[in-house]
């Protein structure tokens, strides 16, 4: 019996140790992010669930002003409550809520979707399906990627110039375009001032590059054999895109759109630039509930051109105030914003999973 080589080698132990170290390092990186994030969430959640403990001075002041029971009943027991969702911002932190911001964000979401989806998908379809490979396409492609990386505050300045002021084309007082729709009047002020439509268009510009790139990826993932097969059956290019390519790319496009929309929902800087950071105790178009839509449906036509505030703006507003109570209100606002964003991201994941099962090549 002869042994050609030993199965034990001391030098190997060192190599194994290095591998082990690397594994630990990677594991540590994973947990670093997770731990910091959950700590943050916990502290915000804790803040959102209780008012700050009043210091001695404040207790004295409260005793001196002798708040009566009736007024006390209007105060929230903690920052995040149902009242928080149904009342407007207030000078009294215990009375303040994010109703205006919620409706403002909803309007933004609606109009960003309306403007982003057709333009983004249209541009992606043009670039992927129609345009020829060449220098122009490459230039556009590179610029799209660059635009996706432009800081959001720059888009804010763009929005301010183009939508809020419209380059000052309409003079000092501006103009109002009136359209008689038969059942109601539609008044469009020019320039748009700091209205929902200005904010939505600005956010639209901000997310368009990402939407276009995501939609392009989705279109590129559709196998070309599907297109060829469609052409071979006598389909025109439009029919091929409409009946084969777009349906197949839809889940990818929708995922990209929803993720971009949730980014738009969380944007603060561009909206501050266009002047949305103000105290506001009304919802756009005075629509503050679903029943309000029935009571004065014309509010739907007014809302796009009304002033607004949004969730991140409201949070920013509260954070910048001095009283510690507003800090806790901001925390409550962050919780609401996070829930909204998480719902949108979940929707994106669900859509992706649902369609992925259906279309497999």
């Amino acid at each position, binding site marked *: 019996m002869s042994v050609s080589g030993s199965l034990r080698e001391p030098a190997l132990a060192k190599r194994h140790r290095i591998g082990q170290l690397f594994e630990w390092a990677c594991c540590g990186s994973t947990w670093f992010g997770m731990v910091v994030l959950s700590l943050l969430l916990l502290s915000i959640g804790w803040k959102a669930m209780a008012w700050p403990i009043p210091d001695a001075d404040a207790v004295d002041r409260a005793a001196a002003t002798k708040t009566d029971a009736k007024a006390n009943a209007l105060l929230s027991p903690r920052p995040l409550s149902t009242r928080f969702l149904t009342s407007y911002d207030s000078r009294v932190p215990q009375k303040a809520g994010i109703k205006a911001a919620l409706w403002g964000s909803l309007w933004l979401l609606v109009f960003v979707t309306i403007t982003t989806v057709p333009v983004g998908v249209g541009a992606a379809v043009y670039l992927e399906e129609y345009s020829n490979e060449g220098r122009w396409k490459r230039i556009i492609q590179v610029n799209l990627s660059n635009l996706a990386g432009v800081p959001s505050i720059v888009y804010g300045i763009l929005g301010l110039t183009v939508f809020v002021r419209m380059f000052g084309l309409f003079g000092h007082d501006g103009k109002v375009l009136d359209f008689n729709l038969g059942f109601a009047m539609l008044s469009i002020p020019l320039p748009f001032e700091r209205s929902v439509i200005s904010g939505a268009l600005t956010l639209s510009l901000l997310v368009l590059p990402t939407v276009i790139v995501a939609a392009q990826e989705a279109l590129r993932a559709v*196998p070309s054999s599907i297109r060829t097969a469609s*052409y071979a*059956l006598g389909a025109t290019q439009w029919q091929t895109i409409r009946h084969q390519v777009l349906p197949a790319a839809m889940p990818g496009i929708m995922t990209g759109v929803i993720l971009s929309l949730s980014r738009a929902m969380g944007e603060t800087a561009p909206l501050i630039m266009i002047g949305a950071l103000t105290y506001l105790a009304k919802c756009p178009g005075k629509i503050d509930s679903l029943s309000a839509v029935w009571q004065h449906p014309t509010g739907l036509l007014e809302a796009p051109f009304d002033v607004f505030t949004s969730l991140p703006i409201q949070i920013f507003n509260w954070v910048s105030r001095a009283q510690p109570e507003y800090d806790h209100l901001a925390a409550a606002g962050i919780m609401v914003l996070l829930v909204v964003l998480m719902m949108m991201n979940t929707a994106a994941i669900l859509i992706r999973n649902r369609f992925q099962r259906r279309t497999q090549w």
Partner: protein
Amino acid sequence: MTIMQSFSELMHQRQQRETVKRSRLVETETEVSKLDVNNLNFFYGEKQALFDVSMTVPERSVTAFIGPSGCGKSTFLRTLNRMNDIIEGTRLTGKVTLEGQDIYAPEVDVVALRKRVGMVFQKSTPFPKSIFDNVAYGPKIAGQRNQKELQGIVEQSLKRAALWDEVKDRMQDSALALSGGQQQRLCIARALATNPDVLLMDEPASALDPASTARIEDLIFELKQNYTIVIVTHNMQQAARISDWTAFFFQGYLIEKDRTQKLFTTPKKKQTEDYITGRFG
């Protein structure tokens, strides 16, 4: 030579089968030409893929293109319904006529051409839709909206493609749930639904198992009663089994085209003989 003998045996089997079939058909002695190709040169960018190809494709027959990989047979097939138009940077000189009409004439609408010259690909490409929607796609995009008519077309096409009995109870199921052979027959049914005169097939059975291949071959044999079929195949036995005419391509040139029986038993050119006896390719 044993290979030649095996081919003649194949021919013999075929003739027996064909005489059974033809007893029902009126035999036409003169071949009516469906497609005429004159001096066709084809370029991918700078690279020339086809050199001066001329041939006629007779009506209601099966014409097979054989040749080693990259010999231009698929490219040539795709010039017959202008599928090469989709590829950027391609160019062509020469003339292709379908029943006397130049298909590359400026006034010809490619969409109309492709409706008359259907195509089936090597890899079955069912759309990720139901079986019904797959077959109904062609007529639908051509403007057929009547549901009753559509159902009729779908049923007839599936019957012609010998798939009806297997799928009639699950028309709304996804076409992707079918087996490979069924998917390919579905693609043939789909091509038939637009009611073409000519059916181009690019290696329709090369990705299938022998049983499915046999079904497709039987199907092609049936279909030639009503359609002009052009098929590209890697498989010389297949060409010998199903085609009436065979064209041998080599390095972008059409080397020889003749009655299948003649080409496989008494080829005129040396290259053809070398290829079919397996000396290269």
